[in-house]
C-alpha cells in the first residue's frame, strides 16, 4: 500500500542552524501539507502546496520557513534558523484531491 515517507525520523540540531525535513508523498497525489505537533498538544497547520506553489500558510509559517518540491517527488520543509520553540513533531501529508490526507510517520525535531 502506498504511503508517505518522511526522513529523518529524528533530527537534533543546534539553535540557529538550518534544517531540512524531507517527505516523499504518495506518487499520484497533488496536494501536499506540513503540520506540526508540539509534544502532547494540538496539530497545527503550517502550509499547503499545490501545483508547485503555496496555496495556504498559517501565521506560524513565517520567513524562517520555506517549502520546495525540487524534483517532482520530494517535498521539503526548510527552517532557516531554528529556535528552541521549533522543537516538535513535523508531519507531512498528501492527498489526491483535497479530501482525506495521508500522513507520514513524522520527523521529531529537537532544537538544543
Amino acid at each position, binding site marked *: 500500500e502506498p504511503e508517505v515517507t518522511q526522513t529523518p525520523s529524528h533530527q537534533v540540531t543546534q539553535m540557529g542552524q538550518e534544517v531540512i525535513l524531507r517527505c516523499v508523498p504518495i506518487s499520484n497525489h497533488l*496536494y501536499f501539507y506540513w*503540520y506540526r505537533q508540539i509534544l502532547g498538544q*494540538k*496539530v497545527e497547520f503550517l502550509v499547503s502546496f*499545490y501545483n508547485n506553489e503555496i496555496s495556504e500558510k498559517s501565521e506560524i509559517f513565517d520567513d524562517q520557513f520555506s517549502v520546495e518540491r525540487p524534483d517532482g517527488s520530494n517535498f521539503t520543509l526548510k527552517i532557516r534558523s531554528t529556535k528552541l520553540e521549533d522543537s516538535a513533531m513535523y508531519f507531512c*501529508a498528501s492527498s489526491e484531491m483535497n479530501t482525506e*490526507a495521508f*500522513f*507520514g510517520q513524522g520527523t*521529531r525535531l529537537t532544537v538544543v
Partner: protein
Amino acid sequence: AQTVTQSQPEMSVQEAETVTLSCTYDTSENNYYLFWYKQPPSRQMILVIRQEAYKQQNATENRFSVNFQKAAKSFSLKISDSQLGDTAMYFCAFIFATGNQFYFGTGTSLTVIP
C-alpha cells in the same frame, strides 16, 4: 473562523465494550469532508474514517462508525468491540471541498483497559 471542538480530553473503555468520542465543529461552509484520525503511541496519524458532508448516510468502517448530524455540526465516532490496539489519541478534522487545510480538534486520548 473554523473550529473543531473535542470536549473529552481523556476517555477510557473496557476491552470489548463500546465507546463514543464526541466532536463538534463550526463552519459556515456547506460542502466539506470530515475525518477521524488515530494517533497511537508511535505518533503516526492514521485515517480511521471519512464522511462527506453532502451524504446523509453515516460512514462505517468495520468496528468504527460515525454519527453525523449536519444541522447540529456534530460528528461523533463510535468504536465497537474495543481492542487494546485502539488505545491512541483520536483527532477529529475537516476540510472544505475547495479548501487548502485540514482543521483539527485538540484530540481525545482513549485508553482501552484489559
